């Protein structure tokens, strides 16, 4: 603790707080489930509290969560930050309070970390590279000069920008034209509306690249409604179960698997390692794999 607070009774086991971007999204749910399963197996090693914010972009609420966990005097915070810079001040305070902080999923801004003279180990995938590889897989089925459109997440979200950038990298490399890039705020219905409009406006469109699978589901609906099934490919990101069904059925071409199930577990193990051994683990990039019908 930071002050002379009376320490409440505790079991003596380290208490780990897992702070997610959202617990209303399959990807993070998987992550949390993985963590819970791990904790159940190692119940003697640590206690686990899982929290997520209501709205994936609500930075303030996530900062509040970190503070609340600090107030609860947890020993470890494993966090998937909603913003790569906005969480840093509070993370630093947590570190100063003696809490072990591990960064998962969305990487803290390295420059900002450096200026703050802070070191927080990172475990997670590279969204941009993942999107790039999904884009390349798609590009193999297209030809230079073909037209595609990108449907992005909430415009200011870090991973939304990363994924869109990855898609753009791949398209540029393959010489495919991106005719429009629009945001659909990660939402299925919104993506359906946007995709339908894009399809109307671009009769020669060959593919829709969506920054997550929810939006890909919306795009698939729009393609079907426009009667262009087979003519327009759709790719997504996250590999949620519904997307797997679509890929199997040929409505979607590909998605990206980030092994979310293990992501939080890696983070927790890193933290426990710091606690128990006092070592300072290196960053660890977790794999991202492209899932197409061939992988299912």
């Amino acid at each position, binding site marked *: 603790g930071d002050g002379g607070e009376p320490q409440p009774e505790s079991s003596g086991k380290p208490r780990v707080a897992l702070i997610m971007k959202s617990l209303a999204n399959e990807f993070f749910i998987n992550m949390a489930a993985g963590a819970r399963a791990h904790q159940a197996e190692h119940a003697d090693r640590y206690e686990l509290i899982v929290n997520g914010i209501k709205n994936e972009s609500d930075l303030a609420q996530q900062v509040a969560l970190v503070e609340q966990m600090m107030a609860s005097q947890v020993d470890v915070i494993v966090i998937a930050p909603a913003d790569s810079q906005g969480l840093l001040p509070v993370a630093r305070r947590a570190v100063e309070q003696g809490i072990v902080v591990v960064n998962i999923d969305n990487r803290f801004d390295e420059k900002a970390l450096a200026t703050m003279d802070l070191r927080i180990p990172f475990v997670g995938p590279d969204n941009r590279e993942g999107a790039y590889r999904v884009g390349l897989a798609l590009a193999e089925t297209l030809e230079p000069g073909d037209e595609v459109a990108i449907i992005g997440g909430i*415009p200011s979200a870090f991973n939304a920008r990363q994924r869109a950038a990855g898609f753009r990298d791949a398209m540029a490399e393959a010489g495919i034209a991106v005719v429009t890039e629009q945001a659909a705020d990660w939402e299925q219905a919104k993506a359906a509306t946007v995709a339908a409009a894009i399809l109307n406006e671009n009769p020669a469109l060959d593919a829709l690249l969506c920054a997550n699978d*929810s939006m890909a589901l919306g795009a*698939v609906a729009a393609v079907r409604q426009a009667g262009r099934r087979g003519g327009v490919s759709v790719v997504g990101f996250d590999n949620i179960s519904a997307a797997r069904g679509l890929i199997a059925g040929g409505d979607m071409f590909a998605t990206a698997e980030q092994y979310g199930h293990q992501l939080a577990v890696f983070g927790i193990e890193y933290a426990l390692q710091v606690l128990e051994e006092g070592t300072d683990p290196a960053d660890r990039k977790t794999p991202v794999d492209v899932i197409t019908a061939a992988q299912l």
Partner: protein
Amino acid sequence: MLPRSDIRLPWNSLGLVVVLGLLVLLFSLQSDYFFTGATFRTLANQIPALTVIAVGMTYVLLVAGIDLSVGSVMALCAALMGVLMVDGGWPLPAALVAGLAAGLACGLTNGVISAHWRIPSFVVTLGMLEIARGGAYLVTDSQTRYLGAAVGAIGDPLPGLGLSPALLVALVVVAVAQFLLLRTVFGRYLVAIGTNEEAARLSGINTGRWKALVFAIAGLLAALGGVFQLGYLQSADPNAGIGLELSAIAAVVIGGTSLSGGRGSVVNSFLGVLIIAVMQTGLAQLGVSEPGKRIITGAVIIIAVLLDQYREPLAARLARR
């Protein structure tokens, strides 16, 4: 004697049709592909859910209530149907009944609590917004369910007609709701309750019961919206319909329905839905940037209602001729 009041009814639709026409014209000038059958089919596929939800909202606003829970209730009902069909293996009709029943139950809960304890419906439905969303996460375990062709028949265009069953049902709902409002005792009671609830109560109307019924209808229509959404997207997403209450209220209010009750028209709400849908589709087709979309949408909402201010004097002047 000419029934003059009919001409001056607040539900004349002149101003809205003008706004709609202007929007279509503008987008057609900007994009070669806007004024095409494809666009209008797209629109026709997108609006059924918002349409029926706006109908329910019109009724709720008419009795001076508000329903913030429609988006969550829609998601909950769609989620329930999705889970029952995918995980439970239920046939579509059975799941459909269960989904509609869930919507009805949510709406009835809203109505009974707010009417019986005289709590502002804003608060009750705000509570329900949270509760139903929680329910949607709970039943789906926060995972989207893909249903595929099993529900396709709802949203796919009927051969020969080019319109989906969802749209047809939505149009029927609009027509029936407008008829109920204008031509039945039920409709007059709603207007009376919205105008002067105390006087309505004194006239022997069981205002609480009618209001509860109205919220139940709104819940049922939210569930129906969920069915349409399910058919359209062929999947059940527990995060569906976030913020939908504001879109629905915007459509209804653009349609000239008063937020303080007693004045409203279902047909005009439908025109409000069309204005919103045309705007969304048009802006997306033009590929306007996100900030631009937001700013234009906001401005159009205000301008539509502003123009509407001039609708009544105009109609009155026409009527005086």
